[in-house]
């Protein structure tokens, strides 16, 4: 069943068309990952789904309701989006920032209710940041900070979680940490997750559904086994990938790749693309 649906959406940035006639169904209770080269429109698609950007044409439906007709605060009770590089003052304390996540649920603005406090506590716990609850944000490492932001989104207590490159700039251990938190939320707390990832191996390991984009088009969607193939990766990234199955968990792994363009003598095109990005 679809919980979030994009219908014939068109997005523009400063006059340039990022995508048009784009359709996507997000299945309830699953982790969907959008992959694709830089500038293909994956972040824009995520922002459109999270009503951060309003599509020029087309509609987005959240639980079969047109997102445009719903009050923004009502949407915030059901859906949250964690932007790519969120910023907050360095002096702000962890718990204070997380409490902001309660905003859409608050009636009495001056005081947190017991429920608010419970949700904040739960968010601190599930993201393993209890030890830093009273620390100022500026004193945390990038990985710790990303978990704090994730906790703020979780305090919002929504069924849909949109994450824009949640692992960028994190070291290997923290990347895994963040993705395992996401997996846990999906498995044990009925969260539907849509995220943008650059690492296709992470996408393969943690997603139920992968959406492959290039130049504003969705090239293909499917399970990791269907998507992480030589043929499809060539279409999405223009690479010749070498793929095997990870004996640890059975998910496909790309362990090496070459540029498909160089091989075909299309350096010119590559250059052009580099300029464009």
């Amino acid at each position: 069943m679809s919980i979030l649906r994009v219908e014939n959406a068109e997005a523009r940035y400063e006059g340039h068309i990022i995508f048009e006639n784009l359709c996507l169904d997000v299945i309830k209770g699953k982790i969907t990952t959008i992959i694709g080269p830089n500038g293909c429109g994956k972040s824009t698609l995520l922002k459109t789904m999270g009503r951060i950007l309003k599509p020029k044409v087309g509609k987005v439906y959240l639980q079969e309701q047109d997102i445009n007709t719903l009050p923004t605060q009502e949407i915030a009770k059901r859906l949250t989006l964690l932007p790519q590089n969120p910023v907050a003052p360095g002096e702000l304390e962890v718990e204070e920032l997380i409490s902001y996540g309660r905003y859409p649920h608050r009636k009495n603005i001056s005081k947190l209710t017991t429920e608010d406090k419970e949700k904040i506590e739960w968010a601190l716990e599930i993201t393993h940041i209890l030890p830093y609850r009273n620390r100022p944000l500026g004193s945390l490492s990038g990985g710790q900070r990303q978990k704090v932001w994730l906790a703020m989104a979780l305090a919002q207590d929504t069924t849909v979680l949109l994450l824009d490159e949640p692992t960028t700039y994190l070291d290997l251990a923290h990347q895994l940490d963040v993705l395992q938190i996401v997996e846990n939320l999906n498995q044990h707390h009925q969260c539907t997750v849509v995220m943008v990832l650059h690492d296709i191996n992470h996408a393969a390991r943690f997603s139920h559904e992968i959406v492959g984009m290039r130049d504003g088009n969705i090239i293909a969607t499917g399970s990791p086994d269907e998507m992480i193939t030589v043929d499809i990766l060539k279409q999405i990234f223009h690479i010749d990938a070498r793929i095997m199955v990870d004996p640890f968990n059975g998910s496909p792994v790309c362990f090496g790749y070459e540029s498909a363009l160089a091989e075909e003598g299309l350096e010119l095109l590559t250059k052009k693309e580099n300029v464009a990005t």
Partner: protein
Amino acid sequence: MLSKSTGPRYVKSLLILIPLFVTIFYISLTNGTFDLTINDVIHTLLRINPVPAHDLVLFDYRLPRIVVASLVGLGLGIAGAVIQGITKNGLADPGILGINAGAGAAIVLFLFFFHEQFGSFSVLMQPLFGLIGGLVAAVIIYLLAWKNGRIDTQRLILTGIAISSGFGALAMYLSLKMKASDFEMATVWTTGSVYNANWQSILAMLPWFLLIIPIYRKSYLLDLFQLEESSLKSLGVSIEKEKAILLLSSIGLVSACVSVSGGIGFIGLMGPHIAKQLVGLQHRYIMPICGVIGMILVVASDFIAKNLFSPAEISVGIIISIIGVPYFLYLLLKARS
């Protein structure tokens, strides 16, 4: 809201600032060309053996002036906290942004054309015209400083300065065309002074201070405004609506102050900055502290302005600028590094 440390810091700050304000209030009330003792003040206030000379000094000169100075400080301090909060810019101040000048120019315009028609009623009308001028200035700044869906810091300051001098020039031009008596009144708005304060002007200002209530109720939103636009949207904040309410209320507050005192700058700049040092980032604490700091700054500066070269007076705006300009430069340098 959750922080354990800021609550006590807030109380401690108030325990220092309020007595400081009372002291300055007391000094301003008793000292001057005509010194009064505390007994004189108490006797006059409680109507025990009133002396006409004391009545005159207290009720006609000093008290209204100190009350106006306090109100102006309070209003500008709180408006500064709001404007810095929604522009996310520590250098924003109603004075620097030209809102003062816009309000001032509109009031001079009003005096120029309608002063005669409205008579004594005109004092009550002034804040309203100030509001219109302040809004016009704010809209122009908004339009010019807007870039890629957000307010650009450098553009904000630059347009502010341009708007400020533009409206200042307009006010000056109109003042020069006025009768000598009106001219004297009009120059007050360009430099900022509380010397013509009276009970009527206080009455005209007071209703506008009710705007502090909706502003304070939204103090929590100002905390959220420290985040980026996309985070705010994701939290379900109706950004443009809330910004408009807050901006409109604070411009109303500024206009009421400017209509009586003219363009006093830098209060809205220094107030929030000092307050953040004292109580941290929560606006429900920052706002009252800003208000009290504003009151202290204006009342103290007015006392200095009045007595430094007595019997000649300097305008309070100049005294505040003497402290404010270096402070602004210090913040500018800090923002650059």
